[in-house]
């Protein structure tokens, strides 16, 4: 018994000493296991954090399930809606964009005027107090908008609608769960756009134009939608699935959730591969010691248990470290970045999920299994055989040598390098895979940026051919009157309206653009060419076709605002427009519908004179000016705000490459120290030996990085498809400069790592290295 205990202690001491002797390799295992679980727990934690934070917010503020827009809803309409089966709450309000003349010309707020105290979409008060239904002078203001304008509780706010000014006192600064993203276009811009809440009684004469509804838990949303549609045929119904802010918030959660299937898989595979190589080498190097333990009479079980600790200790430590570090780093970083656009009141950290624990356990089990596999190979030999040094691996001819003409043209050093690479296939493969992954990740990061930039560029510098867009309010004149008055190369107009698109059993609130036939400033054809608008039917954008499944030739109905009957059309064509879920209709077709004259909501101007622009700035009906160049740069700035994500990808790529290449490089160097010492003895200068090492590394690097190009493009496609936005069509494209730059970065990094390793050459002690055969 005492004897057994002493044996156990000796093995434990051996374990810790072995670990401290091979510290670098154990540290590599720890870091790799940590990397695997870090990426998973980080991304998993991110989507769970955004989900928990947003869903809690939605629940606590009683986010509506339906937003039903109508021209004007009577009390009985609202009561009828309340009685629809499955509806738990209904509240009516008036919603409209109002100008804030005191805060600048292009500044407006979306005002929700509630009938009574808000009970659905309850504003979350961040400063000041809430609003009661009887408060006719008070308003609640978007906290971020207030911050951007230095407004505080107690200040007054002038709101203008249809040339009527009303001044309110700010009672409180709030956040609204239906406005997680408050954007007029793509990007939130609190300096120019926000929201406010007032009492409907404070706006006498204003109709109820929106009914917000909540459903009972488990209610059939589609059935309720049908019933509402039946009650109010002219209503435009937006559900949580199509409500821009809510949908984009949930899409963000879905994106990070999808990413947890891509990147952790990659990190896991690489970590497992390196752990496999490192542990196999370490146990192979211990064969004599295994033989000695066997010869001393230690049981197989005891020796096996001893070597299993080699994997168990570092993998458990690393995997847990990755789990906890991942939990507190990535989600916080990514959340902070997201919080620039997605306004949530509180960052809530979810508990460690079962899947995170599962992945941590998997990492440990995988490492232990790898170790067991490596040990089994060694343990099958007899003690006597283990005590003899392993015979060196025989050299062999490489495939290339069959082409004698080509082989003979290679320099001696190149031949030697080719043979070495072939001889150490496993190690070379691992290093290549490391570089492959590195290049794949960098290409993917650059490809994502390229693809998003290309989408934006294609729209604003391709589809859009005007140089100025001028938004008009409902008092605008006819297009012809503007064409006569304004001096520009070309003046065109668009009539935009929100309509309900119904197809099959589904419906969707979308924007319809009515354009005059013969228009040229929206190049909707393939390759951004001018096309004739359909004369008998309508056209839809690619994104709308994708999300609805509607194809050219399908029959659809369009319900115009306020109509209680839909209009049937055939979708004649799908335009390859990258941005927007849009229906396009020709002006002649519109006129034939007799739904009112074509009244532009925006003008498209090509190269207007300065005087024309000046005149327009003075015009009362003009609400906004938009320059496609500015819009392009604004959209690109969205990209800038996500730089941290891409930086993270670069960091992960280079970290991965460093871990793998440095580890493999060290193993390679250690195992070939004898060869390098022989070269030294033969009179090779240090720089010549370092040159040989670098040259060998360069071959591996070029192959690894080169082979990584295709997976990089593929990964870009996979990631893009998982982050598919509701509004944009992203086509994966990686530009040649990006490909070259990514490959160059990978290669230079690999060269840097190898250079670090070659710095060990001077330390090779010829006498020591060549002393024994082991």
């Amino acid at each position: 018994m005492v004897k057994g205990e002493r044996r156990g202690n000796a093995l434990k001491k051996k374990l810790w000493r072995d670990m401290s002797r091979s510290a670098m390799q154990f540290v590599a295992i720890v870091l790799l296991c940590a990397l695997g679980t870090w990426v998973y727990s980080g991304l998993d934690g991110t989507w769970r954090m955004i989900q928990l934070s947003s869903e809690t917010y939605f629940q606590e503020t009683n986010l509506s399930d339906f937003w039903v827009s109508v021209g004007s809803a009577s009390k009985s309409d609202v009561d009828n809606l309340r009685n629809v089966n499955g509806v738990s709450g209904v509240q009516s309000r008036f919603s409209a964009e109002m100008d804030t003349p005191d805060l600048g010309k292009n500044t407006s707020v979306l005002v929700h005027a509630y009938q009574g105290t808000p009970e659905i979409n309850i504003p979350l008060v961040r400063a000041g107090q809430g609003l009661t239904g009887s408060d006719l002078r008070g308003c609640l203001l978007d906290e971020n908008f207030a911050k951007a304008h230095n407004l505080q509780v107690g200040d007054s706010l002038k709101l203008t609608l249809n040339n009527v000014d009303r001044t309110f006192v700010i009672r409180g600064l709030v956040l609204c769960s239906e406005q997680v993203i408050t954007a007029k276009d793509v990007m939130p811009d609190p300096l120019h756009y926000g929201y406010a809440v007032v009492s409907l009684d404070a706006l006498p004469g204003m109709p109820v134009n929106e009914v917000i509804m909540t459903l009972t838990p488990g209610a059939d949303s589609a059935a309720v939608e049908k019933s509402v549609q039946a009650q109010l045929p002219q209503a435009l119904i937006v559900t949580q699935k199509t409500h821009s802010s809510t949908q984009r918030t949930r899409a963000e959660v879905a994106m990070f959730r999808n990413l947890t299937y891509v990147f952790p898989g990659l990190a896991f595979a690489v970590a497992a591969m390196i752990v496999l190589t490192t542990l196999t080498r370490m146990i192979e190097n211990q064969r004599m010691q295994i033989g000695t333990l066997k010869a001393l009479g230690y049981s197989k079980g005891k020796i096996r248990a001893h070597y299993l600790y080699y994997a168990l200790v570092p993998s458990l430590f690393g995997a847990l470290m990755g789990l906890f570090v991942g939990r507190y780093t990535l989600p916080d970083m990514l959340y902070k970045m997201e919080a620039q656009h997605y306004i949530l009141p509180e960052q809530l950290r979810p508990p460690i999920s079962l899947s995170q624990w599962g992945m941590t356990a998997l990492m440990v089990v995988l490492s232990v299994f790898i170790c067991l596999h490596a040990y089994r190979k060694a343990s099958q030999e007899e003690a006597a055989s283990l005590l003899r040094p392993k015979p060196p691996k025989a050299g062999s001819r490489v495939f290339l040598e069959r082409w004698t003409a080509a082989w003979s043209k290679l320099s001696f050093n190149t031949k030697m390098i080719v043979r070495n690479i072939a001889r150490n296939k496993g190690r070379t493969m691992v290093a290549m895979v490391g570089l492959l992954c590195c290049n794949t990740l960098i290409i993917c990061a650059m490809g994502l940026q390229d693809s998003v930039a290309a989408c934006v560029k294609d729209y604003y510098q391709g589809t859009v051919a005007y140089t100025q867009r001028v938004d008009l309010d409902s008092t605008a004149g006819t297009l012809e009157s503007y064409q006569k008055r304004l001096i520009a190369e070309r003046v065109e107009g668009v009539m935009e309206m929100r309509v309900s698109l119904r197809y099959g059993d589904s419906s969707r609130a979308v924007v319809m653009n009515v354009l005059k036939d013969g228009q040229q400033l929206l190049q909707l054809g393939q390759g951004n060419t001018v096309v004739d608008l359909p004369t008998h039917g309508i056209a839809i954008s690619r994104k709308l076709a994708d999300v609805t499944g509607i194809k050219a030739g399908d029959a659809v109905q369009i319900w115009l605002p306020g109509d209680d009957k839909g209009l049937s059309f055939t979708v004649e064509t799908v335009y390859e427009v990258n941005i927007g879920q849009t229906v396009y209709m020709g002006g002649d077709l519109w006129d034939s519908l007799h739904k009112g004259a074509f009244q532009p909501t925006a003008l498209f101007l090509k190269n207007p004179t300065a005087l024309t622009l000046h005149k327009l700035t003075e015009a009362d009906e003009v609400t906004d000016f938009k320059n496609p160049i500015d819009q392009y740069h604004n959209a690109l700035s969205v990209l800038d705000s996500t730089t941290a994500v891409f930086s993270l990808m670069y960091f992960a790529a280079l970290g991965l490459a460093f871990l793998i290449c440095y580890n493999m490089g060290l193993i390679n160097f250690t195992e070939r120290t004898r060869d390098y010492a022989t070269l030294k003895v033969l009179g090779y200068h240090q720089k010549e030996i370092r040159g040989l090492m670098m040259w060998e590394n360069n071959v591996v690097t070029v192959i690894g990085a080169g082979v990584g190009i295709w997976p990089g493009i593929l990964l870009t496609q996979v990631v893009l498809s998982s982050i598919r936005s509701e509004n944009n069509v992203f086509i994966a494209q990686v530009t040649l400069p990006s490909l070259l730059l990514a490959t160059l970065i990978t290669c230079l990094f690999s060269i840097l790592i190898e250079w670090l390793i070659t710095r060990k050459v001077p330390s090779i002690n010829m006498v020591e290295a060549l002393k024994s055969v082991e």
Partner: protein
Amino acid sequence: MSYISFDQVSKIYGTGESAVHAVDRVSFGIERGELCVVLGPSGAGKTTVLNLLGGMDKATSGTIVVGDKTITKMRSPQLTEYRRLDVGFVFQFYNLMPSLTALENVELARQVSPKSLDPIEIMRDVGLEHRMSNFPAQLSGGEQQRVSIARALCKNPSLLLCDEPTGALDSKTGEQVLELLARVSKTYRTTVVIITHNANVAPMGDRVIRVRNGTIAENTVNPNPTKVEDIAW
């Protein structure tokens, strides 16, 4: 002055109380073209002498001169040049590159030596013309040692240093290797230094240096070296 001259050469490993005098104030000389056998028991310091002579290690004190070069004054790059141009090494465990064939191992030496000899000729000379395209793992120990000698000779060195060249071989193969070394010494007029603990080798040397406890116990010239085949093993 002798071609090789050791003057009061010491090599001390470690410092203070743990200092080990591997070689202690050793002085001897070897003439050009001689086959010198350095004999001594394990741990006597003979490998240290060879390492110092070959520029693989630096002496703590004393002066080593080979021809017109003072080895002990050389810095690392000069020592590399010295090993490259003047010295050929043969090791007990051959130290061949496993990924190179026998001929390619010899060509490896040619890469760095401007006055190298034809590797194929040398391979013929050491009797391995039929094994040139074999990898080391496919060769016997004796054959590997002959490749190692061919590699050393290919550089056409003026000094061939052999550390226990027969240590890993059976007596018959060892005899063949020693015969080859003796022949090389005569044919190429190369100064050959053989380190061994096997006293049977001594009679074949033109000179025999006996090392004991890091010092020279005896340095004798043998006017009538015995042919290898005549030595009783």
